[in-house]
Structures are given as structure tokens and as C-alpha cells.
């Protein structure tokens, strides 16, 4: 029942952004972390047909309905997480990368990630000195219910510490860093397991990078303003 078709006109040579009217779901199956419930996943597919040509492109993604919240607890200074409104005790594993020759296959990721789920963990923290992990890693975290804490490429050892202090201002090319960060966010942002972006390992990125990351990753105002009980048009109908 969740099928929607919109007519869109795209000028020659143009690149446009299009937002579908929101799709309403009543009591969908929610995605839960390992140990809290099922990791229900939906197939979301987008296709485009061009008049006079036929099917022009298609895209698909496994998607999980889940709401992840976290905040710093004033009493302990630790970060508390909630998933779908339920508090969760984080049992996490440290992750650098699977192979230092980067022979990163689907089978390898499936085995590694399932191992973490079998150890009854519910989060994997991807360390800033390693990689922005790959879509296959995130796919199996979606399937096995491992939340992911993904750090960007700043570490306390290499950036801004030591005697003498090394790389006090992080990498030389800040525009390149933000270009890579933005593209990485686009690559990974639809995975339900992605729980938290973190500027770096044991270190705050240089102020301009940290500000840009926070700005790019903050919740879109549209979602800030929606009141809890707003009725949408299709609900009325």
C-alpha cells in the first residue's frame, strides 16, 4: 500500500532536488538493536520513468524505522542512548578495521559483525584512526542490530598533542576534509544502524571543522518544528 507516483519535470542538463510528500505508516514494524527486539527492515525502492523513453534509473535500500536519541547525562558525564523511546544499556565493541590490506569482502563483514552480535554487544565504535566503514559493514549492522558510532579522521595522538604538538590544526586541507566528510555522510546516512557521528578519537577537531561538521549534521529544522501531535493532511483524509 506504500506506493506513490509523482510527476516531475527536469530541465535539460539540470540537477534538481526533489522531496516526495511524506508517506504515512500506522504502527510500522520498528527496527531494534540487538537484544531489544527484531531488526525489521523494509525495502524502499525509487524508480524513474521518462516519457518517450521508459525506465531511466532505479535505486533501492533496506530501511529501518527507528528513533535514536542520545545526550550527555549531567550526573555521570556519560552519554545516554534511547532507541524508540526506550533507554538502552550500551554494550560496545571497539572497531579499527577488518584487514590491514583492506581485503574487505561481504563475507568478511558478515562474519565479523555477526560475531559481535553473538557476543551480545549492541554497538560498534569505529575508531577515528581507522576507516569510515563501508556500506557492506553497515548493511550487516542493520541486519544484526549493531548500532554504529562512526568517528571522522582525527585522533588525539596525531592531531594536536604530543611534544612537540603535531598537526595542531589537523589535516592541511580543510576543504578536502569536509568534502570527504560530506560524501561519507551521503554514502552511509540511510542505514538504521548508524547511531552517532563523532568528530574524532579523544580529540575535538579544529574549530572550523568541528563547527562545519556540527552544522552539517544537525537535525533539519523541518523535523525540529513538527509538534508531537500535528495531524498531517493524509491523516485528516
Amino acid at each position, binding site marked *: 500500500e*506504500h*506506493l*506513490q*507516483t509523482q*510527476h*516531475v519535470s527536469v530541465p*535539460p542538463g539540470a*540537477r*534538481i*532536488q*526533489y*522531496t516526495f510528500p511524506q508517506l*504515512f*505508516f500506522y*504502527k510500522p*514494524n520498528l527496527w531494534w538493536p540487538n537484544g531489544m527486539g527484531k531488526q525489521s*527492515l*523494509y*525495502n*524502499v*525502492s*525509487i*524508480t*524513474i*520513468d*521518462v516519457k518517450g*523513453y521508459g*525506465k*531511466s*534509473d532505479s*535505486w533501492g535500500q533496506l*530501511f529501518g*524505522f*527507528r528513533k535514536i536519541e542520545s545526550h550527555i547525562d549531567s550526573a555521570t558525564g556519560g552519554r545516554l542512548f534511547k532507541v*524508540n*523511546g526506550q533507554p538502552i544499556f550500551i554494550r560496545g565493541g571497539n572497531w*579499527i*578495521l577488518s584487514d*590491514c*590490506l*583492506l*581485503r574487505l569482502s561481504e563475507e568478511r563483514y558478515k562474519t565479523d559483525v555477526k560475531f559481535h552480535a553473538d557476543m551480545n554487544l549492541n554497538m560498534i565504535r569505529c575508531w577515528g*584512526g*581507522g576507516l*569510515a566503514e563501508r556500506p557492506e559493514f553497515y548493511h550487516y549492522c542493520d541486519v544484526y542490530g549493531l548500532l554504529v558510532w562512526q568517528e571522522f*579522521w582525527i585522533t588525539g*595522538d596525531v*592531531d594536536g598533542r604530543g611534544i612537540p604538538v603535531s*598537526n595542531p590544526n*589537523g589535516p*592541511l586541507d580543510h576543504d*578536502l576534509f569536509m568534502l*570527504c*566528510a560530506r*560524501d*561519507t555522510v551521503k554514502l552511509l*546516512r540511510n542505514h538504521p544502524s548508524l547511531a552517532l557521528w563523532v568528530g574524532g578519537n579523544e580529540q575535538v577537531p579544529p574549530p572550523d571543522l568541528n563547527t562545519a561538521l556540527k552544522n552539517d549534521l544537525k537535525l533539519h529544522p523541518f*523535523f525540529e518544528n513538527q509538534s508531537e501531535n*500535528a495531524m*498531517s493532511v493524509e491523516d485528516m483524509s
Partner: protein
Amino acid sequence: MAEIGKMVLDSGWLAARSTEVKLTGTQLTTTHPPTGPTSPWMEAVVPGTVLATLVTNKTVGDPFYGLVNETIVDIADSGREYYTFWFFTKFQCKLSGTQHLDLNFRAINYSAEVYLNGHKKDLPKGMFQRHSLEVTDILNPEGTNLLAVLVYPPDHPGSIPPEGGQGGDHEIGKDVATQYVEGWDWIAPVRDRNTGIWDEVSIYVSGPVKIIDPHLVSSFFDHNTRVYLHATTELENKSAWVAECSLNIQVTTELEGSICLV
């Protein structure tokens, strides 16, 4: 007419050290393509790193065993050109009239020059960004396409102090690249600093209009009983005329147990 969608290029790759190849990228992808894994060319691991290819071909020992890593020359001693490698492959693709082809690299460490059928395209630096090249106009009409990629290591590979330590001399931090490769308290230095085509290479066939990076967001109300899915996507019209499109989104759930869809 080629089928719409992605084809991963993960077999039939060859590699050679750049200092041992006297040809240009244009020659490699037109008049003098390598014929097979004969020196200086060898079978390549793509996706993977230069060192993965060298270990697979047994031209170096496997750094995972014993102190073998000590026998592999470090980039600080050999110089960057020693780990600057050519990667070569062929692929078949015959498009119909209004189809388009993109050549996609999901990640390369650290920068590269791409040659396709004699045409050169430079890829910008950075270990963590995707590259998508529109190659429709430079495909070979009869269908066989020759692809060569010259991959350069990070700009600042650094060197490893005798005492080792976290991140070696920290030079790698000047680049936008993984930092563990200079060694840490839990791992020895990686000699090629993970240089290579380390993630998926693919070609992607689309019609005149292409879907780019959709973004899915869900919002929750009434204790998760009322939920909305918000979807935004970019669309690119590669044709020279206005494209009137029907854009469809469909959400289906995996069928469980003995339930079947009629």
C-alpha cells in the same frame, strides 16, 4: 541496449609498479594494453591495496606472519614512487541511443589518474570520497573498453621512528586518510600506507535521468504508532531536452514465514 544499473568491476585486473612501466596511460589504453600477468604486470586485488596485490603474488611475504613485516620495505625508505602502481582492466559495454554510462570509484587512497580508451581524467585527493566519471562519450563503439588507473600514495606517508609509537611521526595526519597505517601500539606500520583502489569499482548504466543519493528520514508520533517516511533525492537530466518523469517510491516489507504475496 545495456541493462539499467550497476556492474561491479572486480575481476581481471592487472597491476604493475609505475617505475617498471615505460608506457603512458594513453598508450596503455589504446595501442599497447598489457596482454596478461607477464612481468612487470601481475594479477591485481581490486578492491584492495598495493600490498594486498604484492602479497597475493608472493612478491613480498605476508605481513601477518611472524616478523615478515620487517622484511617489507617501508615507503619512507623506498620513496612514494615505489608504491605508485598502475591498475589495468577491460570491460564490455554497448549503450543504446539515449543511455549514459558512469565509471564509479567508491574510494581510492590517495589520488589517481584515470585513462579510458586514451582519454585522461584526474581524480582529486582524499581517501574517503566517491568519484563518478561520466564516460558515455569516450566509450569504444565496438564495446571493448580499456581502463588504466595510476594510483599515488598519500602525500605525507611519514616515517617510523625507531621507537615506533602511535602514528609514527604523525605526518600522515596532514592528509585526509586513515592514520593507523603509520603503526600504533596494537599494529605494526603498514608499508604502503594502504595505497590502492581500496573500495568498489563499478560502471553504471542509466537513461536520460539519473537518481542520485536519496535521503530517507522517518519521524515518529503518538508513541510510534503514527510514523512518516520522508524521502528526498537528487535528479540529474543528462539529455538536451526537458524530461517529463514519473517518479515512483515503493515501500515493501520482507515476507516472513509462509506468507506469500498474491
